[in-house]
């Protein structure tokens, strides 16, 4: 192999794929990156068998070839080189990659590229959909955190992606809360498809999308076992979680006895204040909803927390309330999580009594729904 490329392209590509490099692995080749010539460009790829990232950069190819070398070492070395052309060469049969920029030179011992796992490519796949990159990134951020962190039910440790008509729905639930976000696909898909993706993989995907503006292409491999995503010049691969996601629609209440709207910022602040006291009491935050006295007097939400040894706090947030006075308790962390991913503006909370699921949404948009199960405060 003999190619030359620009240092900053190479550096960016290595940083991009390094997230898929296995950190602790029994298979040494998985801590390497693959460098391969590919139709006049340089292909750079890494995989930890859970996810894979492949990206292409422009290069002038003098001699075809491929090699894998330690990802971290190459990355660190390239980072320190000046922004100038870099020459990469491998002299077979010795698998040593020589990296040269001006008078700076390194020889990095590699492993034969034949040992590197084959990463499926995006072409002629069974199922393809397109979506706006920034919409997808926001969808991921609003849903992914609600996935379970324990692995007892693998399906719940993942995020459901449902393609149906011209919508994409992402949903995640950890047994205590549920997040559902709908987004639009660029064009309708021929058939409904449900897949479940590992939460971590989606976080990586959001990172890769970054501030991309070109549509993201999503494809499922013919074996239905992997998701392939094309973002600009980068391809992202993730394994899928097998199983059936629970029917989440039935969990979402449609009607509410009590409904309130208030400023997200004000409510978020009140919850944060209460959470400092809730910390020592299982994160219990109580909401007491006071309806307005008269038609034009706003109601309010009292946000309070008590820790037996530390003290207590109360905050009041103005809110427009429909329905009777109620009390409900939530885990402060769950509230903070959802408030953090809602756009500022107004938040809507709907509930049906102290023991029933509460729904949190933006008052302005219907496309995101978050359900939180309440905490039940022990009776005396």
């Amino acid at each position, binding site marked *: 192999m003999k190619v030359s490329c620009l240092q900053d392209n190479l550096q960016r590509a290595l940083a991009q794929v390094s997230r898929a490099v296995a950190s602790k692995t029994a298979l040494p080749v998985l801590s390497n990156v693959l460098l391969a010539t590919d139709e006049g460009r340089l292909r750079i790829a890494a995989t930890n068998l859970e996810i894979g990232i492949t990206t292409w950069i422009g290069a002038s190819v003098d001699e075809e070839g491929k090699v894998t070398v330690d990802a971290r070492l190459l990355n660190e070395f390239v980072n320190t080189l000046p922004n100038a052309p870099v020459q990469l060469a491998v002299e077979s049969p010795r698998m040593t990659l020589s990296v040269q920029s001006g008078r700076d030179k390194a020889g990095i011992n590699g492993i034969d590229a034949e040992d590197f796992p084959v990463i499926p490519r995006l072409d002629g796949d069974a199922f393809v959909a397109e979506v706006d990159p920034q919409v997808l990134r926001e969808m991921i951020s609003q849903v992914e955190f609600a996935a379970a962190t324990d692995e007892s039910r693998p399906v719940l440790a993942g995020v459901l992606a449902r393609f149906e008509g011209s919508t994409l729905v992402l949903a995640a639930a950890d047994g*205590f809360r549920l997040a559902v976000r709908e987004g639009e696909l660029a064009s309708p898909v021929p058939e409904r498809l449900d897949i479940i993706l590992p939460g971590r993989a989606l976080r990586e995907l959001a990172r890769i999308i970054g501030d991309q503006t070109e549509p993201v292409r999503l494809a499922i491999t013919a074996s239905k076992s992997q998701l392939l995503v094309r973002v600009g010049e980068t391809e992202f691969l993730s394994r899928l979680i097998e199983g059936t996601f629970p029917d989440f629609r039935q969990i979402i209440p449609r009607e509410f006895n009590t409904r309130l709207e208030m400023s997200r910022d004000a409510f978020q602040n009140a919850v944060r204040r209460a959470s400092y006291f809730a910390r020592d009491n*299982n*994160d219990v935050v109580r909401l007491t909803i006071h309806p307005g006295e008269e038609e034009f007097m706003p109601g309010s939400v009292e946000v309070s927390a008590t820790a037996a040894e530390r003290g207590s706090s109360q905050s009041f947030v103005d809110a427009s309330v429909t329905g009777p006075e109620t009390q409900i308790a939530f885990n402060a962390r769950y509230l903070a999580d959802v408030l953090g991913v809602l756009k500022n503006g107004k938040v809507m909370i709907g509930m049906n009594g102290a023991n029933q699921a509460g729904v949190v949404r933006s008052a302005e948009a219907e496309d995101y729904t978050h*359900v939180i199960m309440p*905490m039940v405060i*022990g009776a005396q």
Partner: protein
Amino acid sequence: MPIQLLTTETIGKIAAGEVVERPASVVKELLENALDAGARRISVEIRNGGSDLIEVVDDGHGMSPEDLAAAIQRHATSKLSAFEDLDTLRTLGFRGEALPSIAAVASVLIASRTADAPVGSEVRVDFGAVGPVDMAAIPMGTRVSVRDLFANVPARRKFLRQASTEAGYATRVVSSYAAAYTGVAVTLTVDGRRVFGTDGSGDDVAAATGVYGPEVGQAALRLVPLDEAAAVPGVTVTGWVGAPAVTRSHRNGLVFFVNGRWIQSRALSFALEEAYHSLLMVGRHPVAVMHVALDPATVDVNVHPTKAEVKFVDERAVCRAVQRAAHAALLGAPQDALPRVQFAASAWQTEQRPMDLPRPRWGPDPDTGRETASAGDPAPEDEKHASGVPILRVLGQVGGTYIIAEGPQGMYLIDQHAAHERVLYEKILTQISGRMADKQSLLDPLIVDLSPEELGIYERSAEELAQIGFDVEPFGEGSVAVRAVPAMMRNVDVAERLRLILKELVEGGAGDSWLDSVAISTACHTSIRAGQPLSLPEMRELVAELERSSQPRACGHGRPTMLHMAQADLERQFSRR
């Protein structure tokens, strides 16, 4: 073969012993008799832990009135006439000892009818006093009803555990036989409630599902015949092993039958677990039902009064066969289960290696429970929290299990699990003083399959569990639905933890009251586990919480939460003094 009396010589050669130890032993003997009689359906009923009633009804070949009279005599058996027969034994019974032994300590009514008899017969034996044989209306088969067990032996009665515990032991016996004798439909009823039933279809997985629930049934991997190279000559192993994802914290789920006889064998258990090798986390055990078939001449069943142990002529060969059979089944297991568990398991193993320091002179004084503060130590008493814990600076974590901290008098090692257990235990106690604990509701009820034993203990503990914050209700046969969990129980596998709590309670509680026992178990199984890496802030928070607790030195089970290595000891160890 008609029943005949054994010669005295043969009797002498048979190890006589205590046959009836507890209700479960009665259940076992009656079940074995029913199986020996070729029954296709057997129903077992137990009331009040077996003290009030144990009844086994079978549809086997039954007994004629003459046989019935003989059956209750000591050393009357239809199954063995000379000692040489022991070597070719194909039945479970052979001593002619069970029925008379039971009848000596209980009120026993046996009714039976053979296929060709128009009418059945029955005989009653009250604490050894044999009544006349009467006619009785009964379908073909035998019904043995044992009432008031040990009523004439108060010492024995006192020795029995609580009814639910005794019922648990009996349940384990019936479960094991029902899972192994797949061709026999076995049902078990405890205190009027049907605990489980098998269909008698002859299918291993169907029986496993019937006994242990669908979760285990789905995980059951059938054993396949080994190829010639791997097979151990003369030993055949059949049955199933559970996929590595389904584990227990104890070995009760390992069931071995040798030539149809239920046995306990540490050697076989270890051999089987060896096959799972790194697939299991430390402290977890698989479930399995395995039949070992071998030439009766190569196994001695007569080494234990209740026949629970056997002696193999070549134990190593049997172990090898068990291990290879399990290994082959596991290799064929669904792919996705393997890598995940394997990963976790290897991480655990490296982290759980015991510490190896030279002659450490540390640890609490066994008498006073206080650390050995060395004589030459300046021991500044001022820097302590109200609870008596010194002010500690967290330095790091060893083996993902112990927090290392520095205090005014040297080095401290804190067992993160025991420490967290103590913290949670006290939190639970404060929460439930005079009220119900806070709980977190679940989006969707979680259905948890319980073993019959676990179900029994759940029923007994339902009120206490509710007070601690569990909202659990019975759900169909053999399962419960969890609707809410204690507020402190988050990010854990709820089903697994609930099962662990119940399992521990089956063994008997560790607390002063049952509520206390449930609290201790809940704290133990909700807390951070050994082997879980913690960040520095997490460790600091845990130590701070421990400092705030009222009795920080031991967990609810009484295990120490911290060890101290005094400055002086360190200096001595490094030969500075």
